[in-house]
C-alpha cells in the first residue's frame, strides 16, 4: 500500500513535470472518451424517441390496407382498391384467436370550418373501438359510442393540432359546432397529444367521426361497408407473430384468392416498422462509436509513444532504482501507473467534455439526447484499460533494463 502510494505520487510528479507534454498526450484519449460519451448520449436519445413512437402508435398493432388495383395490367398505388370491408374486420375479430380487438377507418382530407377559421385535415370515420385499439386517451370530453355510430350522429372528436388551428387559446372546444364538408358537427371530445410518427406524420392532425356518419353523411362511398384501413390488436405481445399469418389466411379465404395470385391487401406489423427504424439508428450509432474508438486507439498509441520517450529519458533514474533494490515488478508498476494515470485523467476530462458537448448539441441541433452514467463509467474504464494496455510495452522495456547499462546511460 505504502509502495503503491509512493508509486502514484512519483507518477503524478513525473506528469506534472511536463504539463504541456502530458496534456498533449492525453488529447487523444480526451477526444476519444468525449466522442464515445457524446455518441452514446445521442444514440440513446434517438432510441428513446423511437421507443416513444412505438408507444404512440399503440403496442402490438397490425395494419391491413387494401391492395393495388390492376387496370389492364398496370398497378395503381396500394390502398386504391376497395377490397376491404367492415365485414372483413368483424370476421378477423371472430376468426383469428391471436387478435383481441379490431378497428377500421374510412379516411379523407376535408375542409373543417369553425367561425372564421378553417383547416384542411384528414377526417376519419371510425368505430367506437378505435381509441382502445390505438391506446389513445382523451384529454377532454367523451368519445362516441355505439348509439352515435348506429344513428350516424354528427359528433366529432378533435386532435390537438386541429383544436390549435380552429380555436383561440383558452377557448373550450367542447360543445362547439364545427362544419365538416359543410355538415355541422358537435365537438364532444378532444384527443390527448400523441406527437409524430417515425415517418414524421402529425398524428394529432385529425378529426374523428363515427364510421356510419362518415359513410352516409360526409365522405360518401361507392360500395357500402368498404374501409381504407383495418387495425388489429394482438391479444398479447407473445402471439403478435401469429397475427399476420392468421389474418392472411382468413382474408385469402374470404376474398377467394387462389394460390400464386397477388393479394388484394397488404398486412403491416407496426412494430416491424419501428424495429426497422430502431435498427437503423443502432447501425448509425455503432458506426459513430467505432469512429470514436479509433480516436481512443490513437490516444493509446500516443501514450505508448510518450511513455517510450519517458523511459529513455529516465534510463539513469531506472538504473539508480534498480541499484538500490527495485525489482522488475516495481519498475513495471511505476511506468504502468504513470501511463494509466495519463489515460484516466484524460478519461475524466473527456467525460466532462462529452457531457458538455452533449448539452451543446441538444441545445443547438435540438436533437433528443440522453446522458448515460454507465456509458461514462464504461468509457472511463476503457480509458484506464487503454493506459494499461499501451503502457505495458514501455513499462516492460523499462523493467527489463540492465542495471549496469542503465547506470552508465548518458
Amino acid at each position, binding site marked *: 500500500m505504502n509502495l503503491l502510494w509512493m508509486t502514484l505520487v512519483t507518477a503524478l510528479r513525473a506528469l506534472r513535470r511536463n504539463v504541456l507534454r502530458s496534456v498533449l498526450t492525453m488529447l487523444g484519449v480526451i477526444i476519444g472518451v468525449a466522442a464515445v460519451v457524446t455518441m452514446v448520449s445521442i444514440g440513446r436519445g434517438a432510441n428513446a424517441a423511437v421507443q416513444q413512437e412505438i408507444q404512440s402508435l399503440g403496442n402490438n398493432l397490425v395494419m391491413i390496407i387494401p391492395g393495388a388495383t390492376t387496370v389492364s395490367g398496370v398497378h395503381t398505388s396500394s390502398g386504391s382498391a376497395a377490397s376491404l370491408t367492415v365485414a372483413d374486420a368483424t370476421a378477423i375479430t371472430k376468426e383469428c384467436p391471436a387478435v383481441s380487438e379490431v378497428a377500421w377507418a374510412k379516411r379523407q382530407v376535408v375542409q373543417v370550418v369553425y367561425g372564421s377559421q378553417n383547416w384542411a385535415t384528414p377526417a376519419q370515420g371510425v368505430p367506437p373501438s378505435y381509441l382502445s385499439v390505438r391506446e389513445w386517451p382523451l384529454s377532454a370530453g367523451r368519445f362516441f359510442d355505439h348509439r352515435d355510430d348506429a344513428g350516424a350522429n354528427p359528433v366529432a372528436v378533435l386532435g390537438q393540432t386541429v383544436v390549435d388551428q380552429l380555436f383561440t387559446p383558452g377557448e373550450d372546444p367542447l360543445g362547439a359546432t364545427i362544419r365538416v364538408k359543410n355538415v355541422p358537427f358537435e365537438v364532444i371530445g378532444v384527443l390527448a397529444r400523441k406527437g409524430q410518427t417515425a415517418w414524421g406524420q402529425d398524428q394529432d392532425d385529425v378529426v374523428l367521426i363515427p364510421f356510419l356518419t362518415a359513410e352516409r353523411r360526409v365522405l360518401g362511398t361507392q360500395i357500402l361497408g368498404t374501409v381504407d384501413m383495418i387495425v388489429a390488436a394482438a391479444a398479447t405481445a407473445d402471439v403478435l407473430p401469429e397475427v399476420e399469418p392468421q389474418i392472411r389466411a382468413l382474408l385469402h379465404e374470404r376474398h377467394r384468392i387462389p394460390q400464386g395470385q397477388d393479394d388484394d391487401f397488404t398486412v403491416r406489423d407496426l412494430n416491424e416498422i419501428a424495429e426497422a427504424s430502431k435498427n437503423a439508428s443502432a447501425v448509425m450509432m455503432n458506426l459513430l462509436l467505432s469512429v470514436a474508438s479509433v480516436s481512443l486507439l490513437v490516444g493509446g498509441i500516443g501514450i505508448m509513444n510518450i511513455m517510450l520517450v519517458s523511459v529513455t529519458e529516465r534510463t539513469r533514474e531506472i538504473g539508480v532504482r534498480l*541499484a538500490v*533494490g527495485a525489482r*522488475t515488478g516495481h519498475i513495471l508498476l511505476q511506468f504502468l501507473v504513470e501511463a494509466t494515470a495519463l489515460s484516466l485523467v484524460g478519461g475524466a476530462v473527456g467525460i466532462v467534455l462529452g457531457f458538455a458537448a452533449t448539452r451543446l448539441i441538444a441545445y443547438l441541433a435540438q436533437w433528443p439526447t440522453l446522458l448515460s452514467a454507465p456509458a461514462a463509467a464504461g468509457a472511463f474504464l476503457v480509458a484506464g484499460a487503454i493506459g494499461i494496455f499501451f503502457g505495458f510495452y514501455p513499462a516492460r522495456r523499462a523493467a527489463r533494463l540492465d542495471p*549496469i547499462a542503465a547506470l552508465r546511460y548518458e
Partner: protein
Amino acid sequence: MAPGTRPLIQLRDLWKVYHLGDVEVRALRGVSLDIRAGEFLAIVGASGSGKSTCMNLIGCLDQPTRGTYRLGNVDVATLSANERAAIRNRRIGFVFQNFNLLGRTTALENVALPMIYANVPFREQRRRARELLAAVGLRGRERHLPSQLSGGQQQRVAIARALANAPSVLLADEPTGNLDSQSSLEIMELFVRLRWQQHVTIILVTHEPHIADYTERVVTFRDGRIVSDLPQASSRPAPEAARG
C-alpha cells in the same frame, strides 16, 4: 572483524566473459578474494583492469560467467534477478562517482528511496532518513534538491542513501572522482567515521593512491587478475576515538 570467522565475501575463481560482436572480452580471469566483515579496503587498477567488473559482481548487479560468489551464507551466482535486487536492497549500498541522485527529489526522499523498496513504514522511513542525513552532516538540508547542494553535499546524500537499510557492504566506485580535494578529504573522513559508527564493510574502487591510503588493505587488479593484495597501516582511523 574477529579473525578466524568465515569471510563475509568469498570470491572463488571468478570469470566474466563478454561478447562484443565476434570479439570475446575476458574482463575477469579467475579472481579469488576473501573479505571479512568490517574490513575497509581499496580496489585499485588501471581502467580496463577488471576492477569495475568485479565491483558489479560483488554488488550483485551482474552474474559471473564462471566461479562462485558467496555473500554471507548465500551463493549469489544461483539467484534470480529479483532475489539479487532484494540483496542489493538490504545488504549492499552503492556510492557512485557521479552521485546518481534523483533530480527534482529532495535529499530526504533520495535517502528514503531504498526503504520504499524494503517496505519500511512511511514514518520510519522519514525518521531513519533524517537520522542518516544528520550522521553525514546534512542536518537542516532535508528539503534541498540535489541542484541546490554542492558536489560534496550531494555525495553525502548518496552515502546516506547507501546506508538506508543498514547494509553489510558499502561499495564506493570512485566516490571522490568528481570532487575537489577539500571535498574529497571530507568524504574520505566520513567513510572512516561511518565504518565504525555503522559497522559496515567498505569497498572502495579508485585509481588515486592517496585515496587508497585511507584504507587498510589494497587489492590491485591488472588484466582481469589480482596482482597484489597488501595490508597497509591505515593513516587515519583511531577506532576508540571515533566510536563515541
